[in-house]
């Protein structure tokens, strides 16, 4: 499992990219992250809600109360146009980052 220190800066992008595919709520998002990484990365509750708070503050996502399912009223999140722009920036940044990191860390172990 990946240590959460390494990945810290990417939580926001993970959530944004998932929300870019459609509105969703806390548990579904954390489950998506777990499944897509085959269980290699787990986002903790507080980490996820910190990210929501940050993204909301920056205007990248909105929240709205969803319908009651299984007796629970969930808070849904949706990406804003600004969030989409930000996600695009992040994607471009990642391409560069990947190249840079690869130059040093990407080689075979000798």
């Amino acid at each position: 499992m990946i240590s959460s220190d390494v990945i810290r800066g990417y939580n926001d992008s993970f959530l944004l990219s998932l929300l870019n595919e459609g509105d969703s709520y806390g548990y579904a998002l954390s489950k998506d992250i777990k499944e897509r990484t085959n269980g290699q990365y787990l986002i903790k509750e507080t980490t996820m809600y910190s990210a929501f708070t940050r993204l909301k503050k920056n205007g990248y996502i909105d929240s709205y109360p969803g319908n009651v399912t299984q007796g629970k009223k969930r808070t849904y999140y949706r990406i804003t146009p600004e969030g989409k722009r930000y996600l695009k920036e992040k994607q471009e940044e990642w391409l560069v980052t990947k190249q840079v990191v690869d130059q040093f860390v990407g080689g075979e172990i000798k």
Partner: protein
Amino acid sequence: MNIINEYVNQVFKTVPLTEETNQLRLDILANMEDKYDELIGNGASEHEAIGVVIAEFGNIDELLSEMGIEKESAETLENHPTMEEGAIDFFVEAKAMIGLRVGLGILSILLGVGLMLSFLSAGSAIQANRVIGIILLLVCLVIGIALLIIEGMRADELKPYHQPFVLLADLRDEVEHQKKAYKKSLALSIVLGVSFCILSLTPLLVGALTNLLSLLTGLGLMLVLIGVGVMFFTYSGNVFNAYGVILSNGKDPEHFEEEVKAEARRKKIDYIIEEIYWPIIVVIYFASSFIFGGSIWAWSWIIFVLGGALEGTIKSLFDTWE
């Protein structure tokens, strides 16, 4: 499942309660419960599932610093309970029961007196009637007084509701709505109560003016009708009062300390006026009237009128200082 609930509540205990943090608590709790259900569904034991869910909770401080929340007022909030919907409903129901039982207690006492009166009049010549009348009176008195004492003691249980507590805004709206809705029932109850009290004169008049009833039986019936009328007052009055108590003691968590302080100040002012201001006026009234004597008594009472006017001025002065 309860352990998870407990865990989250425990962690959030030090977090100042606002609409935002309350929603956060509910969201996180819902996520954890979903996760738990799924783990159980996949064949995990209860212990394993709880372990995993709690391990994946994370660190609340991380979240709080992101939200810009500090734990500073946690202490005051911990000293004051938060009333949730269930607690509010419980209070209103308890007050309604108190109203009903107090009303029944009073009715029982009046019924006892009424029965005794009618037995006495039914044939005061017969010894047995007098004895039966008095026994009935005593039985009804015991029931009535017991009801009143029990309700008096139960009122003690409701003490927390008479001190400041945290009431979230949407629940406050709900209570205000209920109070408004109850106003119609209250008005109807008062009308019915008053009607019974006025109607209660009928048997008395029948007893006094005709031979259909003896005067004492008429009086007894009047007491019983008054008792029924009083029940309407105590029941609906208590329910209406319950809403008032909740709305005045339930504070918005975001201004909790300010509101409690403001109320303490108001109480202090009331205390000063009741315990110092008015006694001084009474002393001045008597002292000056006795010293000057004679005709001054004819108009020295005006000091009370002036005192009343001045009281309003003083109170509003204190209010503007705040």
